[in-house]
């Protein structure tokens, strides 16, 4: 049986270590909910409906909205840092 040696053409790096989840804590006074709309039509409205639903369930909070200029681009590192500094929880989503 003739054999042949070939190079692997694929990505062989191992997956990075998972990032630990942030601690789950009861909402504090002055809770800020971040919303990141991905830029698709109605994305902002969908996220605001979620915020409305949470308020209807008795939660009190302010919202901070960030709208991406393109669904195809990530938020910048500066935007991520700013959201992390101001918000206690951020909701975003992906899809059409």
């Amino acid at each position, binding site marked *: 049986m003739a054999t*042949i040696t070939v190079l692997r053409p694929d990505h062989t790096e191992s997956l990075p270590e998972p990032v630990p989840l942030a601690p789950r804590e009861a909402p504090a006074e002055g809770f800020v909910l971040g919303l990141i709309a991905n830029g698709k*039509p109605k994305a902002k409205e969908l996220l605001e409906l979620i915020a409305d639903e949470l308020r209807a369930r008795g939660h009190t909070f302010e919202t901070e909205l960030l709208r991406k200029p*393109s669904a195809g681009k*990530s938020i910048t590192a500066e935007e991520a840092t700013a959201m992390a500094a101001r918000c206690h929880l951020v909701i975003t989503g992906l899809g059409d």
Partner: protein
Amino acid sequence: MLDSLTIDEAAVQEEFFTRGWTDGLPIVPPTPERVEAMVDVIEGDPETLIGVIPARNRGVTIEQAATNAVMAGCLPEYFPVVLAALEAMFDPAFNAHTALSSTGGAALCVVVSGPIAAEIDMNARSGVLGPGNRANATIGRALRLVARNVLGARTGEMDASSFGHPGKYSFTVPEDPPPAPWRTLAEELGYAAGDTTVTLLPLEGPHQIAHQLDGEPERVLRTVAACMKNPAAFCAGKGAQGLVMLGPEHAWFCIEAGWSQRDVREFLFRESMISVDELEAAGVALEPDGHHDMIPDSDGMLKCLGSPDEIYLVTCGGEGAGWSAYAPSWAPKIHATAVTRRVRPAGEPLPDCGPDGCLVPWAR
């Protein structure tokens, strides 16, 4: 060196199919000798990173690119073109992460302009977009295999194409240098005469354009514009880029009448605008609050192409009754843009990978 495996020679194709390492077609086995011959052409360090996609935390080395180019069937002399196309793909403006993953299913279209296209026997004439030429078929295929194997652009993983199209196997367009006074695309983009460039565009499939009964430039180009303003295309009314491939008769009608390439692009830009009524008649609503600029001008018109400069105009194709072709970008320019790179002669050092690559930690 990359990891290797030693297998039964008769089973190599099935092994690659089973591992998901092909595009569904057989491959040339990437032996170390074949890969080395590919790398030797550019006299580069195989471990050198060509670029990275930060959102995927993945990059491509010269050796990985060469391995996939061998599999695609490339000859070593094609590799500088493959390398230039990969450099273009890693430019942040191209936004490869999205172009490779969008439901829109874009192909990686490689437009080759300049003398190297002829030197490596690419076919820019009859059947330019079809099968039968090794360089045409394998250069584009090499890119797609890199995207699939190294960058994870596979169906069910990081390629969410709803349909895709046949150009995702390979979509390579060598330019047939136009008659004077028209200039090559490379020269139009500001490169020196004698340079060869690769322009990488994320495109939908091409559509052939028939205009065969007269040679009036305005009438010919209106037919081309009619294809460019297809209301069913995702970019209709949103301002995108596109590749116009003028066949020899259509190009000559324009040249003979004294039209410059700029004249053609400006005419096509204007004539490809679409009205709100035309969109509405096709059942296409304006996006009320999205990320696309769909605000009509005072005449109720919207741009299909962002500007005359967003029209990439090349001459190619064969003589016949009068054919051209058009392929639009899969998405408006805010998502991704075409990127051009000069093909470096053998031995010329690689440039710095730029902020996109250098800012991302990379551990091998």
